[in-house]
């Protein structure tokens, strides 16, 4: 089962957790007070994708001073999840340096499609001319975001992390916090830009999961956690910090993500009891609240009825309310003590009506209270721009601003859920002992092989719009039939030193040539390719698949050794741009002399009969002379 969670940017998501067999995780999202009061989308972005043996996440913090920072955050977050899920491929056993190099290339390669989206992003013509000028200036500078992203891989038993900027990434082992292992690398000046790519250094780390108990990532809107949190906290405490932060004047967007290894949560603390003896009295400087100290308190939180909150040091047991915070309709307050965890609230204490001024000279209304979407809500109201994972597309899709909700999406989603349920039921029936289905539908292991696999570039990627941007994630089995985005195409030319190069049916030198009288490419001939695969052949490790193109119908889907080709332009990072087909050895029911490979790519809806396997030669340790491809 693959689960994808993309938190909506136009509303708050309370702390929500999921426990899987081998790991668990939780997440939360809240917009800044300004964004909530203006009912605008937040500029943080958080996305998670997981299945039984891996978990990929990206937490991005759009730079508010840049052009619509939420745009960069979203584009980047989707691209990072895509990369860590689909493209990390052969790097799973690589070193930090290789990971950094390849991911940097990938992030830099996003500049062109991302810039096109920035260029097309509409700015309202209703804005004042000066504001429009400023936005156009920002558009020239691009949209920017910081990020932390990673992949927990239970197969390789490694944790892969990457980050730029000052979004927080903290790690704990069984013995305590080990964040220092990541070094002083969280620099506010570093970020990713739609115009410049990586600004500063991309930081990566690969850790054995045996060294990690849990990981916590959050945006700087939760900077309060920097000092407050020294370990895993209860859900209630994380939510309380989010809400406290959201009522501060400096309130910023907040996103939070944590995962832990194992079948249950890390140990949690206990909340302090509610304070007692609360008294309000009129003092010369204003309304003064006093209470009895709570043992173990590190600080106290005073909260007015309208949500406005105040920090009080634990050495004090009194607090004078600022006159500017007194409003006619705010009639009571309450108090709680904090250790690391949030304590229990006291009962409300009423404010004396005579203490409430009728008006204040400066409008300092508290922001609207955080309102969470119902957990049963299963769609986002946002119409999100196309994903950067579509960077393959030669023409970026137009970006639309947030749009109102569409009721029909409810029906569509409902239908999807019903179909998913039906599919799962059939699947269960299939695996039940004695079920006739496998017999009825089983295919001969040899009868349906076609010469080459017809995989789509982005089989499990959800491009746009994403219906899984929901609080209760839709669980969909992999493969998931998705609308296939426009494939990436890279042009390669036959090397001048080659007279001709053979086009094979499969990506290896022993495979037969394509069934064509003239299945070769000539010297300097240039064609489009849409995919590559890395094989065990040391002489011809990389093979490229010919894309659909006019004039070459008989060669389409054929494979050509990459070392006989040169990309055009020559510096294009084709290994980053093109989707990679990964072949995973599986036990073969056939002769032991044949190794069968199952592609990890998921097939897309196609009229073509898609083979489940392709055949590959026996890996040989005997040197042999490679035939001319």
């Amino acid at each position, binding site marked *: 089962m693959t689960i994808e969670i993309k938190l909506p940017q136009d509303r708050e998501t309370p702390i929500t957790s999921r426990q899987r067999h081998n790991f668990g995780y939780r997440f939360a999202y809240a917009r800044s007070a300004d*964004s909530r009061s203006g009912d605008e989308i937040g500029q943080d972005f958080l996305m998670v994708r997981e299945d039984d043996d891996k978990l990929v996440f990206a937490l991005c913090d759009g730079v508010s001073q840049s052009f619509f920072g939420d745009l960069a955050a979203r584009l980047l977050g989707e691209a990072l999840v895509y990369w860590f899920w689909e493209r990390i491929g052969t790097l799973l056993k690589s070193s930090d340096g290789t990971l950094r190099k390849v991911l940097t290339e990938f992030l830099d390669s996003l500049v062109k499609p991302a810039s096109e989206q920035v260029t097309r992003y509409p700015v309202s013509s209703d804005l004042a001319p000066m504001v429009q000028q400023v936005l156009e200036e920002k558009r020239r500078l691009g949209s920017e975001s910081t990020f932390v992203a990673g992949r927990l891989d239970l197969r390789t038993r490694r944790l892969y992390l990457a980050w730029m900027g000052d979004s927080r990434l903290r790690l704990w082992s069984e013995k305590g916090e080990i964040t220092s292992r990541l070094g002083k690398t969280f620099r506010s000046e570093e970020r990713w830009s739609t115009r410049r790519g990586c600004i500063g250094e991309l930081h990566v780390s690969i850790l054995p999961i045996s060294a990690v108990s849990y990981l916590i990532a959050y945006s700087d809107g939760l900077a309060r956690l920097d000092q407050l949190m020294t370990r895993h906290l209860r859900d209630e405490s994380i939510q309380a910090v989010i809400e406290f932060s959201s009522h501060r004047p400096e309130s910023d967007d907040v996103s939070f993500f944590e995962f832990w290894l194992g079948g249950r949560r890390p140990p949690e603390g206990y909340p302090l009891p509610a304070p007692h003896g609360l008294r309000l009295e009129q003092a010369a400087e204003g309304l003064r609240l006093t209470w009895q100290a709570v043992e173990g308190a590190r600080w106290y939180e005073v909260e007015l009825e309208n949500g406005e909150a105040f920090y009080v040091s634990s050495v004090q047991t009194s607090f004078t309310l600022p006159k500017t915070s007194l409003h006619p309709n705010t009639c009571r307050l309450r108090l709680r003590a904090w250790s690391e965890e949030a304590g229990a609230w006291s009962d409300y204490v009423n404010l004396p009506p005579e203490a409430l001024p009728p008006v204040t000279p400066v409008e300092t209304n508290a922001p609207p209270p955080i309102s969470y979407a119902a957990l049963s809500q299963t769609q986002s109201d946002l119409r999100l721009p196309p994903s950067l994972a579509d960077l393959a597309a030669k023409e970026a899709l137009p970006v639309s601003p947030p749009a109102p909700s569409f009721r029909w999406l409810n029906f569509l989603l409902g239908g999807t859920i019903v179909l998913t349920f039906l599919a799962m039921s059939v699947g269960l029936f299939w695996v039940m002992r004695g079920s006739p289905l496998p017999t009825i539908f089983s295919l001969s292991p040899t009868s349906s092989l076609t010469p080459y696999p017809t995989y789509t570039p982005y089989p499990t990627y959800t491009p746009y719009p994403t219906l899984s941007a929901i609080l209760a994630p839709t669980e969909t089995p992999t493969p998931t039939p998705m609308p296939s985005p426009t494939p990436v195409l890279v042009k390669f030319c036959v090397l001048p030193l080659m007279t001709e190069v053979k086009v094979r049916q499969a990506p290896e030198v022993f495979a037969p040539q394509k069934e064509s009288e003239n299945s070769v490419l000539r010297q300097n001939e240039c064609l489009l390719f849409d995919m590559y695969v890395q094989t065990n052949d040391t002489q011809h490790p990389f093979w490229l698949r010919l894309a659909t193109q006019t004039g070459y119908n008989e060669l389409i889907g054929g494979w050509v050794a990459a070392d006989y080709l040169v990309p055009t332009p020559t510096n294009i990072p084709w290994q980053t741009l093109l989707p990679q087909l990964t072949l995973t050895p599986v036990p073969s029911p056939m002769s032991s002399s044949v190794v069968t490979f199952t592609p990890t790519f998921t097939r897309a809806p196609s009229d073509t009969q898609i083979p489940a396997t392709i055949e590959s030669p026996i890996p040989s340790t005997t040197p042999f002379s490679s035939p001319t491809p």
Partner: protein
Amino acid sequence: MPYEVLATSRSPALIIYLLDVSGSMSEPMGNKRRIDVVMDALGAMLRQMVFRSTKGGRVAPRYRIAMYAYSDHVYDLLNGIRTVDQVAQLGVPELKPMRSTDTARAFAQVEKLLQQELPALGHCPAPLVCHMTDGEYTGNDPEPVVRRIMAMQVPDGHVLVENIFISDNLLAERISDVYKWSGVTPKTKLSNNYAKKLRSISSRLPQSYRAMMLESGYSMADEAVMMIPGMTPALVEMGFVMSMATPIGAERP
């Protein structure tokens, strides 16, 4: 820590501009009149303010602005205090040179405004008064009233006073690159007695403001004061940039 309160929508920074529009402001400065240079700098400052306040397509009201022009009278250019998003709608007011330079009367108006506003600014950044002039006062000495203003305070710190003095030859040395210039310090040699007086009634540049100036590419010294010799349009613009260097929320990601 003084001058650390962030300018946000809920704790906006109050900035009061006091602009001399005396007759001498029609004198040339480069190929423009001084008053036109000031209007250009005001426009650039306002755009920068909008730049810093814009999140997505919305201008957050993190600055509140009052703008007075003065000659022999004081003119309220914005008809009261306006938020930055409102001023962005209005644009830069047009300034016309008039007659004398009653600086004391202008500061008295500012003092009155601050007396009204201060009680409600307990949670806000310390207000700032940005005074731009090109010559000596013609009425009463403004120093007493300016000192009273500088003595006013909110929890974030005393009211800040900045002076931009437009003049051709205030400093002994020419400033070739404003971005490398370290600013006026108590030790800087000034060639004009009125400039020295203005320096004495200019606040010391707070560290948080200095940090913002450094982030904007300027090189203000640790001991710099909030006085700018407006010898060139670039320096005048720098003066207005300084006026809005209040730390702001969400400046970074």
